[in-house]
């Protein structure tokens, strides 16, 4: 298995919307189908909380703590962005652990998807 690398600022910009963050997450998950490790290079990237939550927080929630830390490398982090990424990952992992989706939420999600 090989490794894969994304330059966040050029491969995923603009780094402000949830939609863009979700698209970026899909790209990373696709890359992970053939790469053992995916590197996200955040050099010069200043993502919004929503983008960071969708991309990095979403990856952590989807993969789980162990797989996320083993297969996703994050480099080039600015000192201003580091606490944001730590926060979105911790929050998403805690939500997954502490607040599993309830049947009521699941039904609502299905209804929304049906619409």
């Amino acid at each position, binding site marked *: 298995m090989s490794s894969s690398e994304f330059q966040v600022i050029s491969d995923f910009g603009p780094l402000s919307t949830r939609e863009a963050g979700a698209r970026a997450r899909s790209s990373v998950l696709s890359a992970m189908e053939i790469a053992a490790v995916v590197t996200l290079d955040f050099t010069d990237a200043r993502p919004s909380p929503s983008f960071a939550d969708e991309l990095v927080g979403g990856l952590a929630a989807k993969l789980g703590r162990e797989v996320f830390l083993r297969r996703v490398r994050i480099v080039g982090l600015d000192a201003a962005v580091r606490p944001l990424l730590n926060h979105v990952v911790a929050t998403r992992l805690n939500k997954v652990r502490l607040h599993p*989706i309830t049947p009521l939420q699941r039904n609502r999600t299905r209804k929304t998807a049906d619409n």
Partner: protein
Amino acid sequence: MQWTTLEDVEWWVEQIMSSKPGVEFHGPTFLRPYHFAVLANQVHRLDATRVTVPKAFQGYASRMRLWQSVGLEPPNKVTERNPGGRFHPLSPIVSEMTAQNIARDILAVFRGAGTSDKATLNAIDTALSEIFSNCFFHAEAGREICGLACAQSWPYARLAQVVVADIGIGIRSSLGANLAYSERLKSENAAELATELGVTSKPAPGGAHSGYGLTVARQLMEKHGGSLLLLSGNDGFRATEHGSQARELRVPWRGTIVALEWRTDRPFDIGAVYRAWPKDGDEDEFF
């Protein structure tokens, strides 16, 4: 130049809510973005076909696209001026992408006003992107236009104001969809509650939101000498570096008004906001 207070916006909402379609409007002698945003939203709500403002303000109102933003013809043609460095006219938010584009265009106002520090521009961009996206995702106005945003910078006073307002369901109704807040909403100011980190009507994993937008805007303003004003329904809230004020409004605004005001000669550091967020010790240090 005075800062905008909760009382200022409340007074304006009272004037606007008591006006009728087509009735001539008498406003204050100095207009700010919130005046235009509230008025345009009310015109939009009433589907009014005519708005009359005092002659002295017609040119300014037309440049701020008071009529054009809600699909009306302005009363007279005005010469378009390059707004760079001074203002951004009323712009409708109809998608997440338009929300981002308006944020980017407003950023150009501040570049034009002489703000060149990258960290400051990024912090403004982040706060605006978040609150404009909030409008798109949470206003639920039931119309194509989710909300209207505009901005003004006063270089001599070194002050700026950005406003986004909508005629949607309001914060209380929006948060009420999340059963986790049922108890708190019985006794707390919904506008203040919405600025708390992690408070959202659509939480992950069932929803797709995490409650960052108003928190980032509030904390950025508090840490850097600015002000956040939030009015929704009967809930009014203002936060500054000197403290916060939450109270019931005399007349409800059916929708939400968010106004950010800040000094343009002070740098912003969004990292200071993120670093202040709580964490569970070293376990939360992943990077």
